[in-house]
């Protein structure tokens, strides 16, 4: 794809998807929606934290001798 092709592709994309106007504003106050989420959804540990915990428990179960090492690094 040369520079001319690149520019014509960009131009076509701009025509297909017009740019958003400057400084758009939400149609409503979103603060109540934020507060609602804060009330409804308690913080969930990410899946990675659960996977890490599972891995550590598995390690401790299969290799009990690793427990002192784990405790040392906690």
């Amino acid at each position, binding site marked *: 794809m040369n520079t001319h092709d690149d520019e014509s592709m960009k131009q076509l*994309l*701009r025509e*297909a*998807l017009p*740019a958003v106007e400057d400084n*758009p504003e*939400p149609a409503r106050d*979103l603060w109540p929606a934020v507060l609602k989420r804060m009330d409804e959804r308690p913080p969930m540990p990410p899946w990675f934290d659960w996977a890490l915990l599972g891995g550590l428990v598995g390690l401790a179960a299969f290799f009990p001798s690793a427990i002192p090492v784990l405790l040392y690094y906690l």
Partner: protein
Amino acid sequence: MATGAQASLDEQQSQEHLLAFRHGDVDAFEVLFRLHQRAVYGWILRMVRNPATAEDLTAETFWRIYQAHARFDPARGFEGWARRIATHAALDWMRSRKSERALTSELSFDPAARPVEDPAVAAEVRLKTAAAFRKLPPKLRIAAVLAVVEQQPHKEIADALGISVAAVKLRVFRALRLLRKDLERQGIRP
């Protein structure tokens, strides 16, 4: 002199709000929300191109921001951090099936809005271009829409996506190449 003193006072208050927010203060969080709500909404709207979805994702972004308050570093500023969280919220939304429904948004093109030589053909080409664009992987789509359509600085896009400027350029290049291939398969030569 008075202006300088006022600016200094504003700066001090702003720092106090950032520090209070870092400790989980909801009032300080509301002040930051009021200050940055519009900018975050605008950034999200540029990516998802649907006002109702952008409003929903703005609320989601600020919820995520509050959840992450303890990890906030006041020295690095709030705006860039918020934009990064907003970008990830938009990416998550695009990856979900929800994005498929909102793609026929009011922000997609209006064929009658632009004078062209052959309106029927041009309208079809634009429709197919928009449809092909929606099939791109979300991370390519976001880079391309922000860089090409919205013409945002590459540095800002890079910071928001957590990648280098070179990586942004590469994503835009890949997006355009995939788009061109898709259109050519449909018999359209851009």
